């Protein structure tokens, strides 16, 4: 069984800068982290591997060269292998272009086709782009089942049973393998790097894959392969005409509030 974890490096804090000209994010090298839900996906992959005979966990990321730091962290946390898709040609990819590249990488790593027991794990969404589209899109391109919003996975022979959290409750879904699963925070508590993991992470080569290696042309990936374009980025504008009152001992503020609510017809 091969378990693949799609892992995105994201800015660690909310201080993200946008290039207002191109509508792309300006990333700096420091303070980048593994997307939090991808840590859950990785932890789940490791948990499943440890109960499956001969299972292997491979972390795959697409991003700038420094995204290999996130992959080294993944190895320290327990991944067996890691590969990085990195090349200028991948830059500016939207979710469709990203998914095409990741799907092609999966097929290539699996030797032409995902195996009958293979599983691809993703986060439900990443904290920067926040579309939650990459997991399902990868599954559509690979033409394999997808289960989204998952908080529990049980593996059976050639199938999984997953708990999917929806608005009104919980669905128990059975899907055949290979499949893509996107996980939510409730699935587990991510672990910590181990000492042996850290040592392994230091020495491990992380192969870098380019579009050419995957047989992808510039029409498939990057800006050219992306049907969407960010045309404008701006700060959310708020503001209303606010009636402000200061609380006082006479209670006029509360009286004013009640009159205001009566005027608006909400009480």
């Amino acid at each position: 069984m091969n378990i693949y974890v799609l892992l995105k490096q994201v800015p660690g804090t909310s201080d993200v800068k946008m290039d207002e000209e191109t509508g792309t994010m300006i990333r700096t090298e420091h303070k980048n982290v593994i997307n939090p839900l991808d840590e859950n996906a990785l932890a789940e992959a490791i948990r499943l591997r440890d109960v499956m005979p001969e299972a292997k966990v491979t972390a795959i990321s697409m991003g700038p060269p420094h995204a290999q730091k996130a992959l080294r962290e993944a190895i320290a946390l327990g991944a067996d292998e890691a590969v990085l898709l990195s090349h200028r040609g991948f830059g500016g990819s939207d979710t469709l272009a990203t998914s095409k590249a990741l799907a092609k990488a999966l097929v290539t790593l699996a030797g032409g086709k995902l195996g009958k027991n293979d599983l691809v794990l993703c986060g439900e969404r990443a904290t920067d782009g926040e579309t939650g589209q990459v997991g399902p899109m990868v599954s559509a391109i690979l033409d394999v089942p997808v289960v989204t919003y998952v908080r529990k996975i049980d593996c059976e022979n050639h199938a999984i049973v997953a708990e999917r959290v929806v608005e009104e409750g919980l669905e128990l879904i059975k899907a055949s393998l290979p499949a893509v699963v996107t996980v939510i925070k409730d699935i587990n508590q991510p672990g910590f790097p181990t000492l042996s993991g850290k040592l392994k992470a230091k020495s491990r080569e992380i192969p870098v894959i380019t579009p050419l290696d995957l047989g992808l042309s510039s029409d498939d990936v990057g800006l050219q392969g992306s049907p969407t374009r960010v045309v404008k980025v701006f700060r959310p504008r708020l503001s209303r005409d606010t009636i402000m009152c200061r609380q006082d001992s006479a209670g006029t503020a509360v009286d004013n509030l009640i009159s205001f609510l009566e005027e608006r017809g909400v009480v």
Partner: protein
Amino acid sequence: MYRGVMIIGEQRGGELHPVTYELLARGRALADKLSEELSCVVLGHDMERFAEGIIQRGADVVYIVDNPLLRNFLPRPYTSVLTRLAKEVKPEIVLAAATTQGRTIMPLVAAKLDTGLTADCTGLDIDPLDRSLLQTRPAIGGNVMATIKTPASRPQMATVRPKSTKPLSADKARSGRVVLKSYEKDMFTTCEELVRFVKDATQDVNVQDADIVVSGGKGLKTRDNFCMIEELASLFGAAVGATRDVVDLGWVGYPHQIGLSGKTVSPKLYIALGLSGSVQHLAGMQTSETIVAINKDPDAQIFKVADFGIVGDLFDVVPELIEKLKERKNGKLRREG
């Protein structure tokens, strides 16, 4: 030639979910700007009875795909049918709700159609210059808004955040066509199966359907004090909301969380107590009709979006408000009795 606007109706447990009416309102506005037709697709079993209501709320055409195998939402058959229908009808715009269903099905269909998809839009408009769809969405923790276009691929696809728009009221005089679609059997084959559905009572909080939401933040200081929020809410007949910090502290469950990583609400009245108004929280409530804020810090961000603000200590203001509301209620009862 791609023409017209198509929305994907949301079916849950054999019922049409009201978010469909929000999509119809969005779709109607866009279709009118383009002077094109608005269509609505409904997948499921025994769903034809909803067609009339859909037309009354803005659709010109309703496509019904009826099959017992579509009773439950399953990605594979839903993708096959919607992809096929989009290829037949060729709409220039396709919208679905940004719910667990919509956020799952739309990326699948977009990838099959090899076209772009914009997630979780709060604003949709038509660019007067080239008639293309302007899709505006919050990203990066609500810190930025991005407007996205799909210049060359069709259809232009977007998921729309629930409760970010008001449905149109039903117009009994509206007319439209109902088209029943049937497909060959292998369109419905699946490799996923719904083994069981367990309704979760704790998900029943329904802050999204409430007319009034009373929310508390960390300013309440303890779980015990949070009871004040609950009391005020029950006086208003309101649902209880909370900030993420409060949910993380365990004072109330996650279904109460309002904001970017919680629920988006747009009630008639939102009362914010002892919460600062972080961008992430605002992302979930700033479209409320009326916003009231009580905070001891006159510079708190929440006042920027409030219609009525009281600067003061909530431990004085809230009990006073509760008292006066009770008096008012009793007075009313006495007058009526």
